[in-house]
Each structure stands twice: as structure tokens, then as C-alpha cells.
């Protein structure tokens, strides 16, 4: 394995989705270009923040990175392998290595499965041994009691559900995790817990992480580098400290200015 090579390389990535709102009565819906030629790389062990407003294409980009969506142009390479147009069957062996944590933990956990089964299912699929032990270890990792194996998702709090989502992802020992707005639905107290947890896990397990958020405050806390997306294009891609100290793109500045800091003395005109 070539360690110098970035884990994920994205080259001139384009992605169009059918625009159902503009669909004529007869014939196919027109295509709407969501991602307009993005190029960047995520080095091994890096934490990249992806930030942007609604309609910026950040979630679409995330789903393209782990090939839940198929790009319409350009290339995505995962650990050197071109996965841009890889069919689902060929992606399956790679799935273990790239995992995702979802925004809405309630919707992303099957409501009629118990926590234990939710974590064990993917392990079993990928032929892991000692499944019980691994499920327990995953629960330990995210700070949930082992007794939660028997619970259903709706019996947990929002923060606990999100921990189950994280446990499911890390149990597979992936190389890459995509976290899509994973704290936006949580209260501030569980938000802080989940962020601290994720930070620790990234360091402990040597994960490469792409962290999508609309909240620059959260990004600053967690990420070394930031990619600012605006209408499907990269507005800025720079080290986090630099983005906050001296944002180069006008859109980045606009985003920063829009954040209401918990401080009545901050000018916010």
C-alpha cells in the first residue's frame, strides 16, 4: 500500500440529477447539474470538513464519494482504484472500507431491528469472526452500555441513536468514514458528546474522515482542512485556521458572518 498517495482522489467530478420539478408532461426530466467539476484529495488519516449552504451540493458530493450516487463525469479513486462507474456488485467488497454516518439517526436505523442486530448484520455479511465480541467492543467504543443490544432504536435518545450509527460504522474497521450532518439534529449537550467521541475515534482508529456540515463552528472544532462548496463548485479549499483567520472567498465570509455567535457583543449587522 502506497502511504504517500491520498486515500481519496477526486478529479473534475461532475454529477447531474434529473430535475423532477421541471419535468415536461411527456419525455424525460431535464438534468440538473449539482456538482460542477470538483477536484480535491483526502490524504490518509485526514479530517476534511465539507461546508456549504442548502443547495451547495455537499450531501450529493458525500454520497458520490462513497458511491451511493454515480457521477456523470470525472473520476473518484479510492485507495488508487477507480470507483467512478464501478457496478454495485463490484463495489460490495469495498463497502466494508468506506462507511457512512447519517444525519437522521432515527431514519438510518431500521426501526424493527434491535441495536445488536443493526451492528452485527454488516459484520456477518463481510465474514467477520467473533461477532458478539465485536458488537460489544463497538458499543464500548461509543460509550453505550452493552445491554443496549436488545433495545429498539425508538427506545433511545437522539444522542444514543447517533452513537449506534457510529458503532455500526466503526465496527467494520473501515478506512474512510463519511459523516453527513451528524450533529445537526442533536441538542447542544449531546452534540458536544458526539463530536468529542468522533474526535477520539478518528485518532484511535486512524480513520480518514469527511465531515459534512452547514455549521462552521462544528467544522472548526474537528477538521484540519475545509472545503467550502457553493452551488456545486469549490469556493475555497484551505487549512481550517486559514479559512477562519482570513477567508479568501466572498461566500466563505458570508457564511462566517451569518453565524450568530453566543455573544451579545458580537456585531451582527
Amino acid at each position, binding site marked *: 500500500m502506497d502511504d504517500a498517495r491520498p486515500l481519496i482522489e477526486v478529479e473534475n467530478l461532475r454529477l447531474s440529477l434529473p430535475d423532477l420539478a421541471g419535468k415536461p408532461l411527456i419525455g424525460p426530466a431535464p438534468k440538473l447539474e449539482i456538482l460542477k467539476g470538483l477536484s480535491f484529495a483526502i490524504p490518509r488519516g485526514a479530517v476534511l470538513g465539507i461546508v456549504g449552504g442548502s443547495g451547495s451540493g455537499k450531501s450529493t458530493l458525500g*454520497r458520490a464519494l*462513497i458511491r*451511493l450516487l454515480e457521477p456523470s463525469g470525472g473520476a473518484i479513486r479510492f485507495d488508487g482504484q477507480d470507483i467512478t462507474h464501478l457496478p*454495485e456488485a463490484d*463495489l*460490495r*467488497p469495498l*463497502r*466494508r472500507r*468506506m*462507511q*457512512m454516518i*447519517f*444525519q*437522521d439517526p432515527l*431514519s*438510518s*436505523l*431500521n*426501526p*424493527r*431491528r434491535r441495536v445488536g442486530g443493526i451492528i452485527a*448484520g*454488516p459484520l456477518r*455479511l*463481510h465474514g467477520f469472526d467473533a461477532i458478539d465480541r465485536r458488537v460489544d467492543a463497538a458499543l464500548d467504543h461509543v460509550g453505550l452500555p452493552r445491554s443496549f443490544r436488545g433495545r*429498539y432504536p*425508538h427506545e433511545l435518545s437522539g444522542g444514543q441513536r447517533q452513537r449506534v450509527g457510529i458503532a*455500526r460504522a466503526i465496527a*467494520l474497521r473501515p478506512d474512510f468514514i463519511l459523516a453527513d450532518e451528524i450533529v445537526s439534529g442533536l441538542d447542544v449537550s449531546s452534540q458536544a458528546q458526539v463530536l468529542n467521541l468522533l474526535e477520539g475515534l478518528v485518532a484511535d482508529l486512524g480513520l480518514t474522515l469527511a465531515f459534512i456540515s452547514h455549521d462552521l463552528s462544528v467544522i472548526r472544532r474537528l477538521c484540519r482542512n475545509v472545503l467550502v462548496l457553493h452551488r456545486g463548485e469549490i469556493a475555497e479549499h484551505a487549512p481550517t485556521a486559514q479559512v477562519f483567520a482570513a477567508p479568501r472567498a466572498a461566500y466563505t465570509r458570508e457564511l462566517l458572518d451569518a453565524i450568530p455567535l453566543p455573544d451579545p457583543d458580537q456585531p451582527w449587522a
Partner: protein
Amino acid sequence: MLDGRGAIRRRAGARLWLSGGWLLLLVTVALFAPLVAPQDPLAQDLMSGRLPPFWSAQAEPGFWLGTDSLGRDVLSRVIWGARVALTVACIAGPLTALIGGALGLIAGFYRGWADRIISRLVDIWMAFPPVLFSILLIAVLGTGLTSIILAIVVIDWTRFARVVRAEAMNQGAMDYVAAAQVAGFSRLRTMTAEILPNVLPTLVALLSLEMGISVIVEAILSFVNLSLSTDAPTWGGMIAEGRTSIHQAWWVLAFPLVALFLTVLSFSQFGEGLKDRFDPVLR
């Protein structure tokens, strides 16, 4: 919160017990009809025609619910009629659910051309008036239990296909389906192991309704003389006969009607009760 939930479960219990009790009673007497029925359901005795039920002064012992105009025992005929009703419900219902549910699940989950074909088929199918369709079918297939069951399945699968398709589409949009894809599960496994358990409560509720509907359809077909042979005891047939003598002997019509009513109601309540009792997710 916990209190409210317990209350729902307790109420579900009463519903489950009442409907389940009636269905159990019905199944038992239907299974052991030859032993339970006090009389031969076909035995005619014109001398003891239109005997009233047991509480009346003119009642005769042994004919608890009275007799019809041909002197046949109403109770025995209701019991034997339950056999027909339950056979139809227990075969036609699940069969319809299986076929319609599978097609709906495939259409709703895979979408694409499978959905287009199945949905068009459903649209076309539903354009036929159902009663006419079933009468036509039986005219072609001939009368008999198999024909009735076949007619119900052929007509009612669309009901399952439509509802299950919509529910599968809803579930398909949830992130846990994307999560299954991220985990690397195949589409087929995702459909059967992730979507199906979430569609199942809807399917069970529909099935219980369908079993009730089957009983009614069988009764309607009997009523218009398209079910079994004319003198075979069926609830629909009894209602048809009872109708002609309603002023002289209301019981000939009333008892099979009550049995029909309770059975249809029990099926639907039993389904709802099962859902409330056993579904881990209370909505």
C-alpha cells in the same frame, strides 16, 4: 410516556381476546362440524319447517336456532357454513396477500421497469368492475370452492399490490436502506430483510381485512347462487333463502347474518390487535 403505552397494550389485549375468541370458536366448530352439529345440515323434514329458536314456546328440543322452510336445522347449517367461510378466508386471504404483496414490494423497492409493468397491470386490472369480473370468471371456471378462491385472488391482489408498493416506496426513501447499501448488502437482501419487516404490519392489517372480505365475497357469490351446489350449507346461501321467508321466519336470515358480521369484524380487529400487541414500533 410509559403509562400511556401500557394503556394501549391493555386495550389491544381486550380486542385481541374478543376477536381471537370468536375466531377460535369458529375454527373449532368448523373442524369438528360432524361431531358438533346437532343435526344433519342437509336433512329435510317438511313436517317441522320454520321452527322458532329455543326461547320460543313453539321450539322443539334439538333445533336450538330453529329450522328453515324445508325443516333443516339452522344451527347445524351455520356450523357447516363456517367450514366453507373459513376455508375460503384462510386460503384466499393469504394467497392474495402473497401474490399482491410480493408484486407490490418488487414494484415499490426496485422501481424502474418492474414498477412500470406492475403498476400498469394494476391500473388495467382495476378498470374491470369486480363483481362482473368474478361472475364472468366463475362462469368460465365453473362453480365450486376452488373457483371462488381463484376469483378472489385474481380480483383482490391489486389491493395489496397498490398499498404495499406505496409503503415500500416510503420505506425505500429512509436512510436505513442507504445504510444497508453502504454496508454492502445486496438489493434482494435489503428488500427481504430491511424493507419487508417494515411493510409487514401494513400487510398483516390488509390481510386481516382481506380475510373478512373473502368471507363476504363468498357469501355474495352464494347469495347469487354462484358458489357451491344449491343445497350445500353456506352463509350466503342461507341468507338468500332466509330473505324469502323473512316475515314468517326471521331466524333463518338472522343467524347466518350475525355469524357473518361477527366473523368479518373479528378478522379485522384481530389483525389490528396483533399489530398493536406485537409490533415493536408503536405509531
